[in-house]
């Protein structure tokens, strides 16, 4: 049981090791298009190592290191920033204006929220919900353009796989983020653990999808080099 608990507690760390392994073994042959994903995996892993360490050893941590919420807030902003960059960089969107507008609104919301409504040291469920809305919107735009594009087959591209994984991840976590803080307070901490376990499962799934997308990117680059 202790082993299972440890696996669950550290799942936000070892999940990121899956795509990291691909990055480290294939780093020379990965396309520059995958740079936002590589940055997300590395920075996300570092953030999660620190936040999980603070969580697991919180009893022995000094007071100023007992609260890891700010790291989760940074992580959500990182996810929005890097995956928005990745989707816009895929050059599938007919116009970057709607995506630009929504990102500006998100940025203004994040700044306003932390200045006027909530300290960054509290887990910001509105920010998490904003993340799911922004990324679900961008993923839906991606899929819509993929359907409308008669020239390219986006199904074979790594970006389709990344957006599919991201879409499922954000869809599953929408309700978790929506009800986490208010219901966690109302019911008990076991509910919080339960919903966060689902979140961790979805994160592991998402990281596996990222790893497969990175492998596909490497294989496509290899195929195009052979063709040349």
């Amino acid at each position, binding site marked *: 049981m202790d082993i299972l608990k440890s696996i669950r507690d550290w799942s936000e760390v070892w999940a990121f090791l899956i795509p990291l392994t691909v990055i480290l073994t294939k780093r020379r042959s990965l396309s520059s298009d995958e740079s936002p994903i590589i940055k997300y995996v590395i920075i996300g892993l570092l953030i999660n190592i620190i936040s999980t360490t603070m969580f697991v050893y919180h009893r022995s941590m000094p007071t100023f290191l007992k609260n890891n919420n700010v790291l989760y807030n940074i992580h959500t902003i990182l996810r929005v920033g890097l995956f928005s960059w990745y989707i816009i960089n895929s050059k599938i969107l007919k116009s970057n204006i709607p995506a630009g507008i929504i990102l500006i609104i998100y940025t203004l919301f994040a700044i306003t929220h932390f200045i006027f409504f909530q300290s960054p040291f509290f887990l910001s469920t509105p920010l998490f919900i904003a993340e799911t809305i922004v990324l679900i919107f961008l993923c839906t735009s991606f899929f819509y353009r993929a359907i409308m594009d*008669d020239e390219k*087959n986006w199904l074979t591209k790594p970006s389709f796989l990344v957006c599919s994984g991201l879409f499922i991840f954000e869809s*599953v976590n929408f309700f978790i983020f929506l009800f986490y803080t208010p*219901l966690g307070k109302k019911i008990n901490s076991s509910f919080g653990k339960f919903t966060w376990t689902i979140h961790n499962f979805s994160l592991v799934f998402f990281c596996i999808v990222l790893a497969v997308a990175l492998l596909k990117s490497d294989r496509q680059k290899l195929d195009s080099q052979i063709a040349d």
Partner: protein
Amino acid sequence: MIDKNWIHKLQTESQNIILLVIIGIAAMLLFAVGFLTIVVMNQRKKTQLQKSMEKLREQQQNQLIEAAVRSEETERHRIAETLHDEVGAILSSAKLHLLGIKSEVLDEKDKKLHEKGRELLNEVIQKVRGISHNLHSNILKEFGLNEAIRHFVKKLTQETIINATTNLDDNYKTCNADDDISLYRIVQELINNILKYAHASEMLISSSFQNQVLDLVIFHNGDGLTQEQFEELRYQKEGLGLKNIQNRIILLKGTILFTSGTEGYRINIHVPVKTAQHE
């Protein structure tokens, strides 16, 4: 008791909310998976449609090529027959009439004109016969591709400085007469081009037939074409003959490759042969 009731109510409410959250998560997951399934199926359908359009386009192109080639052969055959049956007959008749003139009654000047007339008439009869045979080879029809190539090479090179030899695999037997005509035309065109442009002194035409595949190789020591030059010239006005060769190769579902080496230039023609069973 009130406390117990309140706790029980809270527990029931908690369970309901947890159930609601689980249903919400499941619903979102189902929505996401369903949406992705629709996108993937739509893309697959589009890809299949594109593939079938591509296939239809290719089929149409092949049909056009086939129609062009067949109509060219039909026209050649018609012209060959007309030349042989009509023009040839008239020229032979003219020769007979000319031969009917007794040269003894002619003076020296008229004798010379008569002789010249006979020579020219003989020459034109030979040329018309040659053009007719070139347009439609009876040897190809009666004796097959190898004999037709041997005869063509011998006839074409006998009055030139080029030393042409053939080394053809007699295991090859005609399976499809139309395919043989296409192959013969390709060889004709290539050899004519070599004679016209390559300034070669040696030429070898060889073939091998194995595993239902015919490999024809034309080698010469003159100035030949590289594969890149062939690809380029096909699309130019002067490259109509090469375009014709390419069309026939497409029709035969074969390949043609132009290569060069230190000794000379090589043209490799690789054609799968359709047997009666495979058609």
